[in-house]
């Protein structure tokens, strides 16, 4: 008993939850969606996932080295970003573009702002927006899922939302639920995404507020602002189409770029839902999830400021 004792401030124990474990859970939750992507779009999809994950992790490693900071590759957040980026782009995206996207996500959006926890917009989504703006052509040329490719001769293929906007044949809801439609590689299969979301809920990684309020608001608004007057919309179609599911379950819930309090989360998610539908219905773009979430990301500091929880025992004053 001659060695020195540790002294530290209380508390002296910590829960078993670690950042790394949380990120691992997100990766596990994304496995069904990744498999669905590979199943529907072929091995090319798997290659794309590998490229983004490896390049995100690689850039994270390099950037920490260059910045002379501790290495944070181990927290797996870069891997999550990489995986989500792959799931958010068309399966046919040229690989070098995927690497450019990873660079943007990790270096520009995340590490320049100090790394994990300090970026103010979602890295994967910002990278996706960057790619859309920069390489609009490549980012909006969709291929049909393998199962459909046989029936359709065209090389390009409309997503459900594209079809809605341009006029075209709308897929049936079951295909949309299963993922047998065109679109970004990870967004098509609502089933796989919901399975992942359930896992995250059960593990306590996310709370239900953001996904449920987001999807709920979007559905409600899609129903209200129907094409043939009020209350004639098809909420289910809008919920299953495009990136709403993956956005609501995996992207809007990103801790770093979403509000801290439950009240804030509800406001934020409702904002995401409203903007998503407004963008889908009233702008030239068929899809609005990315920009909706990014815009609400930007508003998070303000939301946080105005949703401070009521002080214990001080209902009257905040």
């Amino acid at each position, binding site marked *: 008993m001659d060695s020195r004792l540790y002294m530290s401030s209380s508390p002296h124990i910590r829960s078993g939850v670690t950042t790394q474990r949380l990120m691992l859970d997100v990766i596990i939750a994304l496995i069904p969606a990744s498999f669905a992507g590979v199943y529907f779009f072929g091995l090319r999809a798997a290659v794309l996932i590998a490229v983004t994950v490896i390049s995100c992790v690689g850039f994270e490693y390099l950037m920490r080295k260059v910045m002379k900071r501790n290495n944070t590759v181990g927290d797996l957040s870069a891997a999550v970003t990489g995986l989500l980026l792959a799931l958010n782009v068309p399966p046919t995206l040229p690989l070098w573009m995927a690497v450019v996207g990873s660079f943007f996500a990790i270096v520009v959006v995340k590490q320049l702002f100090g790394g994990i926890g300090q970026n103010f917009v979602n890295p994967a989504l910002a990278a996706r927006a960057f790619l859309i703006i920069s390489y*609009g*052509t490549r*980012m*909006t*040329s969709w291929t049909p899922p393998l199962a459909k490719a046989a029936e359709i001769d*065209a090389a*390009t293929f409309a997503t459900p939302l594209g079809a809605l906007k*341009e006029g075209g044949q709308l897929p049936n809801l079951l295909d949309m639920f299963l993922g047998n439609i065109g679109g970004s590689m990870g967004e098509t299969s609502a089933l796989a995404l919901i399975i992942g979301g359930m896992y995250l809920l059960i593990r306590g990684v996310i709370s239900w507020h953001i996904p449920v309020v987001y999807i709920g608001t979007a559905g409600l608004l899609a129903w209200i602002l129907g094409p043939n007057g009020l209350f004639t919309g098809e909420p289910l179609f809008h919920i299953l189409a495009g990136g709403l599911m993956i956005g609501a379950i995996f992207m809007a819930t990103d801790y770093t770029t979403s509000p801290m309090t439950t009240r804030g989360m509800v406001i934020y998610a409702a904002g995401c839902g409203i903007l998503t539908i407004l963008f889908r219905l009233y702008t*030239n773009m068929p899809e609005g999830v990315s920009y909706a979430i990014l815009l609400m990301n930007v508003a998070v500091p303000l939301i946080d400021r105005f949703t401070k929880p009521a002080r214990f025992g001080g209902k009257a004053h905040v």
Partner: protein
Amino acid sequence: MFKDIVKPALVLVLVCAFITGALAYVNSVTETIIAENERVAEQESLKSVYSEADSFLEPKVAGALKSEGLEVSERIEKVYEAQKDGQTVGYVVAVSSGGYGGKIKMLVGIDNGLNIKGITITSHNETPGLGAKAADSPGFTDQFLGKAPEKSYNVVKRAPKDESEIQAITAATITSKAVTRGVDDAVALVRSMAGGV
């Protein structure tokens, strides 16, 4: 009193007068050049869509055409008559059509036989690299050259199958449609005017 109020005012007046005088002088020099520039530019662009014509008459604005009892779409701005050897051989229609980033203004040259002679986009606010391709590279507008279809053009996203089909610029369907709509309107107008000639 003088020092506090009148003097500053006087100095300011002097500065203003001097500067404005200088400007007025510069203006008097450049005025004619600018006007001439504009005229030349206009003629040049008219020529570029209708190279066979040797002169163009003063344009008629949309309002005037309407009062002549013609069906004029809201996109039409004005119409020039194209003349060759003193004969009206066709028209150049100035159209302005709503695109992705705002109004796309263009000139469409059409002869009396409803052949499209040329199209130029004179101003637009489309995204560089996407919609702006309509103006930057001739590939898109060249599709229109030749006989206009009976009804209207169709924008498609694959290789066109016949004359009336126009292949959209990738990822810029909106721009493509806007331009096409403009051409359609110009053709419709010339059809009704040429019919009347």
